[in-house]
């Protein structure tokens, strides 16, 4: 084994991959949210559609989006590998456990939270990403240019209460996943210091509330608009 595979196959190396991909996905959430919030601009989707088209045609964004899919995949695969390894480290469970007295619920259930997010992700990608990329899209014309009308697809989806509920509930799961994952990633990278760790904790808590809440706001507002 080369030193790279040896390092990345150790428990610490696997955790490193989880932390690095996790932090990238956290960054991705911010960019994704910034784009999505344009759905709430009352111009019948003009800014959102133009933004989506610009992003889709930007070569840099296209490379990053391939990386993004790769990182999601690594995050999932290593989560599965680590979960299996961790399960096998305790073949016989305790009859009684008071784990709630020494750790948070989210920190002990990252795998379950992540699995729910994965199911959401599949629904989400099928409903929007796949439609935008390969589906037959309605078009809109702004200033003589033809654009794919993604706004229409989104607003139609969000007029369905079932869809809205799935989105809002999923964001709740995301919030709990982030509430542990954000600060945990820094700890795994070895960044733990009395000087800045309390700040990382606070930013993590703020991030885990604010970002999912803003994501959840979009389907709620668009549902109300559709009434």
């Amino acid at each position: 084994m080369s030193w790279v595979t040896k390092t990345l196959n150790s428990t610490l190396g696997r955790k490193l991959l989880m932390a690095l991909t996790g932090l990238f996905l956290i960054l991705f959430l911010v960019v994704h949210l910034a784009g999505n919030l344009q759905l709430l601009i009352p111009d019948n989707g003009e800014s959102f559609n133009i933004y989506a088209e610009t992003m889709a045609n930007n070569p840099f964004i296209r490379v990053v989006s391939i990386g993004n899919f790769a990182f999601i995949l690594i995050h999932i695969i290593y989560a599965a590998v680590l979960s299996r390894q961790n399960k096998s480290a305790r073949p016989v469970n305790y009859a009684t456990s008071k784990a709630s007295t020494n750790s948070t619920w989210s920190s002990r259930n990252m795998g379950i939270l992540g699995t729910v997010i994965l199911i959401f992700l599949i629904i989400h990608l099928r409903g929007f990403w796949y439609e935008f990329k390969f589906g037959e899209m309605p078009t809109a014309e702004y200033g003589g240019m033809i654009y794919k009308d993604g706004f229409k697809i989104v607003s139609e989806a969000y007029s369905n209460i079932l869809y809205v509920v799935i989105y809002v509930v999923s964001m709740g799961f995301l919030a709990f996943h982030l509430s542990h994952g954000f600060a945990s990633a820094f700890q795994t990278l070895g960044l733990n210091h009395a000087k800045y760790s309390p700040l990382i904790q606070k930013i993590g808590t703020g991030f885990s509330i604010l970002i999912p809440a803003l994501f959840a706001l979009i389907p709620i507002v668009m549902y109300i608009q559709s009434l």
Partner: protein
Amino acid sequence: MKLTLKVWRQKNNADKGGFVSYPIDGISKDMSFLEMMDVLNEQLTEKGEDPVHFDHDCREGICGMCSLHINGKPHGPQQTTTCQLHMRSFSDGETITIEPWRAKAFPVVKDLVVDRSAFDRIIQAGGYVSVNTGGVPDANEIPIPKKIADEAFDAATCIGCGACVAACKNASAMLFTSAKISQLAMLPQGQVERKDRAEKMIAQMDAEGFGACTNTGACAAECPKGISLTNIARMNREYFTAAVTTENV
């Protein structure tokens, strides 16, 4: 005090094992938990039954020999070693569940006794400093800042009891290994073998079958010596730095 003890009994490693309930009476609130176990064992011996096997040695909270998962927590409800736990932490009439540490790397030997020699092998892999023979060095010959000395000492207070492994949902030995890596990484004497130590001890930790870290913090919360999670972060830094800078290709 009158209590019901639900104790894990297992003949040997191959045996499946199971819980046996023992009613016990006349326990004083001032007894230590292990003294209460002694009372139980005296009763069992008088009846001609096999006494409950459990690990213990100094009974002063410094050797790390006692273990026991008591009512769902390693070393019981207080953040101490089991020998320093007293019966006043329990209430009259209570049922107390006593289990061995549960980890693949800590196989059950008998009843509540587990084999913790996996920890010894992690230490053997690199948790030492090489010392030259010769004259006794002068005191204070090597200057070490007080703050660093204190931090290294804090890490060195780990008694290797295994409560971190027992508490961790992944049966991970990261807190133990990180304390042992930290105590030497911070001191001048530990510098020569520093990178090698991180790589070898972590390789051994993985080979023993301990789980990975999810940063739940359960280990530090249950550690009778209060070893902190900063040690795990330091171990991660030591390991990743060693991986990219060591001469071993």
